[in-house]
């Protein structure tokens, strides 16, 4: 037993651990009366323990606080771990911030700063700057007017500037060809004031008004033709003029998911209407209507979840107006029809059907089998179940505190395999 204690003391560096010293050194130190080893053999168990304590006492060290521990504990105690992913806690510098930019422009990383405690919690501010290796940038800021927040209502102001030089466009409609891929730059600035009010239970109404300033140009994706020189001339698409929009809309939502960041039970149904008014050319004003039903059916103590989604997005414009191509509903990419490339299909209307079977691997990881089906159409009347595009695949969802922060999906479609790595949940 005692040998074990000495060994542990040595392991804990309480006793010097330099190896290779000769026994002679020890012997000489003993003969010279070294404290540690020169004790008389104990005559009682009490004395034996006293000796051990005496030896420990002779080699006490102060307990140390690792700077890493201080840093991590500081983050945890400020609610940083949860606060990065939801709206509570976590004020301070946020680094790194992954995701949050338009897809298809490279791996993004950013730095943010959030303060939710300003004006005695009546004002919350969040600012993030992000960028990718493809020279895409995004700067955004949100001001939460918590003074106007109560258990029913909430108001915030959101502004963002984003420059995406590698946006893809394949042409209009479901019959667009993969080889027609063209690249364009989408640079926009948006400012939106949003207010929401919970009408009853999970039923909430949101209204918003804002402005969108758009600038497009040739894209920079290598080996892909920039749009102005490409096969599509896009007459009336919005490419030839730079429009500024006034936009406003409303959102009616019935959301009773248990955990919006990683739902396992409940549902989320919404109807979203937005009107875009072209303030520059008066040629691209239109309305957009999006509807979706998301349902989560758990079993086996929530270690399995069947997640279902059906969504439709429709746009309409008066005869003298067109929907600009960069605001068209799209399919393909990391969210919809995951076996197709980003923005693979674009048209004025879109529908998507998704089914996922998710299962527990360990608390930080969930796996999923998924099937997407969808189509785009020039008219809402042809949004039916014929000529659907399909994608199947498997995925991994990485979670912290039950919130999905990263997702890897491998999808397969008639156009081949595609892997999606993104920092958001699919739904």
């Amino acid at each position: 037993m005692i040998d074990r204690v000495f060994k542990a003391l040595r392991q804990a560096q309480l006793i010097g651990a330099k190896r290779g010293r000769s026994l002679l050194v020890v012997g000489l130190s003993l003969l010279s009366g070294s404290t540690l080893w020169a004790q008389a053999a104990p005559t009682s168990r009490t004395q034996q323990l006293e000796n051990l304590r005496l030896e420990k006492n002779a080699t006490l060290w102060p307990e140390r606080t690792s700077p890493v521990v201080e840093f991590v504990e500081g983050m945890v105690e400020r609610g940083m771990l949860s606060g990065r992913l939801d709206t509570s806690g976590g004020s301070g510098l946020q680094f790194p911030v992954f995701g949050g930019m338009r897809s298809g422009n490279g791996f993004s990383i950013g730095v943010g700063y959030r303060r939710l405690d300003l004006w005695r919690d009546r004002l919350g501010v969040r600012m993030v700057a992000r960028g990718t290796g493809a020279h895409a940038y995004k700067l955004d800021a949100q001001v939460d007017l918590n003074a106007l927040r109560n258990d029913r209502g909430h108001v915030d102001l959101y502004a963002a500037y984003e420059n995406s030089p590698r946006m893809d466009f394949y042409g209009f409609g479901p019959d667009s060809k993969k080889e027609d891929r063209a690249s364009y730059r989408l640079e926009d600035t948006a400012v939106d004031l949003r207010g929401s009010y919970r009408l009853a239970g999970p039923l909430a109404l949101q209204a918003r008004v804002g402005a969108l300033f758009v600038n497009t140009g040739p894209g920079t994706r290598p080996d892909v033709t920039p749009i102005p020189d490409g096969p599509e001339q896009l007459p009336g698409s919005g490419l030839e003029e730079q429009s500024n929009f006034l936009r406003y809309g409303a959102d009616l939502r019935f959301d009773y998911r248990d955990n919006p960041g990683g739902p396992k039970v409940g549902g989320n149904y919404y109807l979203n209407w937005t009107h875009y008014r072209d303030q520059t050319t008066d040629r691209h004003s239109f309305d957009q209507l999006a509807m979706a039903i998301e349902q989560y059916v758990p079993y086996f103590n929530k270690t399995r979840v069947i997640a279902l989604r059906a969504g439709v997005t429709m746009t309409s414009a008066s005869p003298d107006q067109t929907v600009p191509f960069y605001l068209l509903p799209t399919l393909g990419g990391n969210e919809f029809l995951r076996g197709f490339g980003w923005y693979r299909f674009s048209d004025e209307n879109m529908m998507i059907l998704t089914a996922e079977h998710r299962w527990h691997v360990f608390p930080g990881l969930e796996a999923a089998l998924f099937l997407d089906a969808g189509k785009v159409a020039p008219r809402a009347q042809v949004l039916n179940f014929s000529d659907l595009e399909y994608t199947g695949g498997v995925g991994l969802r990485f979670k912290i505190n039950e919130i999905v922060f990263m997702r890897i999906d491998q999808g397969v479609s008639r156009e081949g395999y595609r892997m999606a790595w993104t920092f958001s949940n699919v739904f």
Partner: protein
Amino acid sequence: MCSSERTVMPMTAMFLVILLLVSGTAELFGQKFFPNDPLVNEPEPYRVDDASPRPLSGLIDYFENAFGEQGERHPSGGVIEALGVNTLGEVMEGSWYNLRHYRTRMSPAELARGAGNENPPDPNASWEVLTVKRFGTRTGLLISDGSDSLYFLRFDVPRQPEMMTGAQVVSGKFFWALGYWTTQDYLVNFNRSQLQASEGGKDITSIGKTRPLQEEDIDALLNNVASDGRGGYRAVAHRIAAEARLLGPFQLFGTRSDDPNDIFPHEHRRELRGLRVFSAWLNHVYMSTLATMDGVAARPDTTPHLFHLLIDFIGTLGSGYGQIKSAYEGYEPAFGWMSSLQNLAGMGVYSKPWMRVNYPKHRSVGRFEYELFDPEEWHSVAPLVPFDNMLPDDAFWAARQVMAFTDADIRAIVATGEYSDPAAEEWIVRCLSGRRDKIGQVYFNKVLPLEKFRIEGGELAFDDLAVVHGLIGSRTYSVTWGALDNLTGQIRPINVNRVSGTMMTVPAPEIVAGADPGRYLSATIAATDSPHEVVAYFRTSENGLNLAGIEHHWEGKVVAPPAEEETEEIVSRYNELTPTQRELFDPYAVAQSAAAGKNETPDEYFGTLRLSERTTFEAVTHALEETSLTAEDGTSLGIALDQVVAIERIAGAYLNRGGDAQFRVYVKLKDTAYTVTHPSGLECYLSDRVHTLEKSTEFFRDKDNTVFHAGYPFSYRQTGKLPNIQFSMSEDGLSGDVDVDYRSSKSPQALWNGHLTASNSDIRAGKNYVLHDLRWAGLVDWWLDYFGKVPEYHVQRPDLFVAPPETPTPLPPDRPYGASPALVQDAAQEWLTDWLVRGNIDEAIAFMSAQAKSCLNVDDRERLEQMSLADAKAHLQMSMSSLVDVLGLKANLTEAVDAILPWSEVVPVREHEFDGEFTLVEVPDSVAAAFRCEVRSDEGLRDVLENKEFQYGNYFGTMFRLKDDRNQGGVLSVLWAKEDGAWKIVSWEAVTD
């Protein structure tokens, strides 16, 4: 376990002798039992004064456990037996553990009492909320009910009322009855109206800072907890005793390096290994270092020492943190390679039994069951090394305690959870009973579960717990008696036949009963239906046979031989001292040891010094030894250490003492007549060494000590950049204290750089060692390594454990910028409040006269600064802001400053309404003139004080001490005079040591 079993390297006979000498413990000599075995209690603990608070990270701990291996595991060749136990295998009682319900059955009332039920928060009192913590791992309210105790209230989440609070209370009482130290927890029901934000209260924000508490902060927290919808809340109140000092969690491996009583690696402590069984029973899946706490017992009736608690049981039974338990919890670790691969490969089709458990829908219970429960397959969320190290005898030790709880016992404790749903309470009782039985079934089969050995009527009797608890019927035992050679540990069979019997008694042969006193006999007991054995050891005495020890042997048990250790150099700091240091230390050590009735050598005595005393002695004497003294003509005057003739006392860290009484060496000085003039005008006799310092170019006569260094008014400080040595000497010049100042004493930096705290002279604090080595190279930082540091002493105590605030003095409303109060005390109050409470530095600076700029000295140079008014203002603004940054804004003036009294009657004190915060004195014109920074000197002030005629009325002084949470802050003396009809600060002085 015996030395004869030890494999040693080839060595000469001399080294074998040395090895024998080295083996200074009983077991290495081969002695198995001591006369006082079995030891029930740990020996009286060593005194522990300077253990430091230390946070640990549960997150880092988790990753280290999940993806690495902490602590020592069983080697491949065998197992490491539990430590911290006596020869019966019982955990020695003391600061870790006290056997309770198992040793003496507790009544239902005692079980329900737990760690205590005498001190609940007063339900009829108004509860002052001192701290609101809304973020992080443990959220809640720190309250005071007006008694000596504080309480930390924790709540349920809205979806699961009563679940978390019930689990905390119920499991806390179980763990108490099982023998652990726990907090006193009370279930309280109260209305919002009972809570009041304390005027000095704090809200911890999401940025991690504190701010003055407001009622809305309390509401913000309560909005997210379970309530009855009518303003009523239920919470669990952890009592925080006033006498306890909490140091943060303990690690589940290794030992605390600053606690001499902590000698057994935690991963081998039986009470922590066996904790796995208790945790499985109560589903304490979140058991981790964060669920523990070290504290210092500081009651007058005990020697201050560390004790070790389990504190957090919110996540026990079916409860999780903020939600019910996840389905996997208790059945799989949060991460395991094999379990994860199984789940992943199962593609969601293959499901494990725990996924399919049908839990009853009790909102106050969560996920808790007993039918699928298998104690061996139970998992904590994070792997823990003591749990991994649990052996069958550890598990038996724990399982027999679990089995000691009857259904009635369980029911009595579960009732303290005060569940409003009787079905929920009944379900918990049923689960605990069912899980208890499974624990008995599993672990009583891992060893031969015998205990309570005794000789009765010529028969060896014992209890077979498997039989006692009805898990099996009777069985047949056989006993082989032997004689133990206590020095070698070898057992020699006694020439008697193997005997057998049933029903837990076996006849003992006559030779056993008639053995000579002082011998040891062994009885090796086996059962026909078990592969395991138990060996009971008896010591013969005139009174018969007394049980001396028990060993459980299970099938396949192989005790790992002590690991091969190469001989190593042992750190003995005494041996590292220089001859000069030893020459100084040895007589002191011998005298101190003799005074304590001991006969320790200096080396031994050095080992008994507290850590901070050793580091202080080394640092101070090293600095003195490395400091040469030179006369102005270049003649050598020796070294500074030569001037010290004896040590009177080595002062290390002393909590709650000022920085001028810690981390210094009190010395006797050389006795040669020399006189200086005391501030009072008296001629004083000083030593020659003072004369030497006076002559040396390395020291100068500093300002006399008027506030600090009581009894040592004369100060000599080393010249040059920091750090420097300071001699503070008595009036007769025969004694003094010597310390090393690592922080600037120049005002205004001294107010906030730590000079007036213990950090100033503690070699271990902050970057002090680096500074020391830069000036006096050669000191070894043996107490420090790359990864760690000693925390600064001015670090605030954790907010959860702050003392109740004083009642603040009411203040008038904030006056506008540039206001000119008619009374000087109002001006002083406004200035201080603007500065330290409101943080309005600009408004505070408006009270400063342009004359005061001469008081600025922004570096360590002796010469005062010559700077423009704008520069002076900028520097002053920076200094005042820096102080606020360090101390933080205070909720009120009472929390910010404390009045101190002047030492001279020349400046009479005037009463005023803020005299608890600062002292107001009348200052004679002549003294005020001499106090001006541009002309101030000790000599000048002394000259003025010698006059007996004083003219009062034009000047006033305010004196106060800045409050720091743990230390005495700096003292400021401020001179006020009227300029253009407004009271202005015309001069000031930061009084330093």
